[in-house]
């Protein structure tokens, strides 16, 4: 008998199954660590201490978490409308340009809190602009959004390269990056947040954009489950034919969804560009857009889940950096492996354990 349609309680669907998938992902990643001759348990310990051991570590962890919340939300919003946006990476990259242009033009004149709202808008607009073309191609020409967003990652990368290498680079400097923003173009650090828990932020770049990320989580939740637009997005995502029956305009919803998704991805740039390095650097996104895919899948596309899984990946990123420092054989690319494993087990193989769990559950509750 097929078990696919047997309903399971929420705590199994949203708790046990993702957790088991995560355990599997870690198990296989541990095998890799073991294969290169290191102790996986020691590695895990180093990783956790590095990520959560000190105030500074926590600050870094939350810094990464911030980026992943944005990109995770970006991927999730699109998934709710049935669109798989692999372009968050490029959207965030272009978003950085938006934020940087605002910061560069305002930082001389106004304090950060005046710059910030404009920077948020700038980052979101540029991110949305990057999503607009694939969205239009999907909406009007039926081009597969997965392929077009991948293409746009490359296109944006070339574009940003040109802008940084040829236009915004500081003359005489080697590195293709803008000048450092003045304090009027920087987001303040959240020392108080860490010291509330008795830690010290130190050099960790945890900054105001963390709070913006949390606000965005709430807004996305409202959007998806409490607005008419969200209702339309979800309808389209689950059943395009029902959406067309209900008069939900396909092209319009695809466009709006992707603009929102791109905008959220773009806002991610606030964190590294205005919060951490105070300048626009080449390739500053560093894969956070792709991490968003894993974060969203892991978090079951729900803002609360996304916060939790972004935190998980924040721990991985920060802990991974410390780990590679103490255990040089385990380079930070190990994180990419883990990320791939998480996407594999929590995404592509999400149903692998289900039949077994259904059988187990039915036995446990004494069902038929």
């Amino acid at each position, binding site marked *: 008998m097929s078990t*696919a349609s047997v309903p399971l309680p929420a705590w199994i669907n949203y708790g046990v199954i993702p957790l088991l998938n995560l355990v599997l992902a870690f198990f296989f990643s541990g095998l890799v660590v073991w294969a290169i001759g290191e102790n996986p348990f020691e590695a895990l310990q180093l990783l956790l201490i590095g990520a959560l051991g000190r105030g500074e570590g926590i600050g870094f962890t939350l810094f990464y978490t911030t980026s992943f919340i944005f990109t995770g939300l970006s991927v999730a919003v699109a998934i709710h409308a049935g669109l798989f946006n692999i372009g968050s990476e490029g959207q965030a990259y272009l978003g950085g340009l938006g934020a940087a242009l605002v910061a560069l033009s305002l930082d001389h004149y106004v304090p950060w809190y005046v710059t910030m709202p404009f920077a948020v808008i700038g980052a979101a607009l540029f991110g949305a602009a990057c999503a607009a073309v694939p969205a239009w191609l999907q909406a009007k020409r039926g081009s597969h959004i997965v392929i077009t967003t991948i293409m746009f990652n490359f296109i944006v990368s*070339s574009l940003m390269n040109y802008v940084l290498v040829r236009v915004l680079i500081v003359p005489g400097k080697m590195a293709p990056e803008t000048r450092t923003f003045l304090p009027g173009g920087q987001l303040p650090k959240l020392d108080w947040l860490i010291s509330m828990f008795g830690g010290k932020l130190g050099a960790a770049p945890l900054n105001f954009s963390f709070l913006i990320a949390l606000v965005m989580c709430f807004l996305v939740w409202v959007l998806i489950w409490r607005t008419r637009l969200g209702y339309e997005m979800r309808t389209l995502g689950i059943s395009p034919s029902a959406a067309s029956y209900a008069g939900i305009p396909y092209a319009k919803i695809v466009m709006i969804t992707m603009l929102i998704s791109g905008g959220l991805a773009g806002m991610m740039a606030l964190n590294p560009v205005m919060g951490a390095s105070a300048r626009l650097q080449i390739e500053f996104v560093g894969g956070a857009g792709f991490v968003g895919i894993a974060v969203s899948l892991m978090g079951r596309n729900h803002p609360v889940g996304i916060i939790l899984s972004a935190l998980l990946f924040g721990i991985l990123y920060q802990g991974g950096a410390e780990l590679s420092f103490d255990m040089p054989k385990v380079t930070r690319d190990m994180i990419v492996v883990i990320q791939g494993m998480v*996407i*594999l087990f929590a995404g592509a193989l999400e*149903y692998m354990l289900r039949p077994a769990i259904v059988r187990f559950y039915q036995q446990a509750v004494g069902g038929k």
Partner: protein
Amino acid sequence: MDYFDILISILGSAIRLSVPLLFTALAGLFSERAGIFDIGLEGKMLASAFASACVAYWTGNAWLGLLAGIGISIVFSLVHGFASITNRGNQIVSGVALNFVAAGLTIVLGQAWFNQGGRTGQVPPEGRFSSIVLPGADAMREVPIIGPLYANVISGNNILTYIAFLMVPVSWWVLYRTRFGLRLRAVGENPGAVDTAGISVSWLRYRALIVAGFLCGFSGTYLAIAQSAAFINNMSAGKGYIALAALIFAKWKPVPVMLACLLFGFLDAFANFMQGKSVPLVGEVPVQIFQALPYILTCVLLAGFIGIARPPKAGGVPYTKER
């Protein structure tokens, strides 16, 4: 150097650059014709490049390297099959996951084994596929037009290049003239028809993926030990996606696939050539424009301005009998 020499030089370069695309796109052809989207081609290429470089480095034998490249690529295919056929997972998600695993694993292992920033060691000459001078190439060289074409474009490539172009008619023959091909094309259109004809949909799709893995193994091997002499981080650099684009452009047909790959290879070669040169009226064209060109072109193609492509009907959808 006159225009003809330039053309010959660019054509030679285009051939070399299109070979990995060709293997990969043919790999995609088999899996997508069987109804399995394979965005993981990129990862397979990378993993096989790594495996072939390692083995060729250790053994000094190019053929063993090729074998290893093919082997690992098939393993990746099987994982993709396990996720998307056996467990009916989302094919795109599975492909994306495998791309990450390949990207990370190659560097982690490479760094642990070779300490060269994720690179493998330099493969010795015996461990590489070196170029083959076809008979009469030097004699022909002086013949106008055909001579240089033969000597510099056709001759002087490595064996994998010739295999790549040989694979085009072979693929065509397999797809259209064999039982396996008939069934494979059928399962990509309507798996139900295959199932009710008493053929196992899963096994058929697995076999298609194995063929895809086999072909993709060549592409990685070519990158690592024919075109260069080591594995380098992220050496596939998006070629898997370009191959996918070529496949779509070619409407999932073998001969057009070859032409599309040659086109993308030519673009790349042309970009290399144009670098730093100035174009009359325009001046020096930023190299970034050429770098972005294949991707822009792909979007234009996908937008259907050059004819809408009809993908295999059952593509991307896991086959489920019982809901």
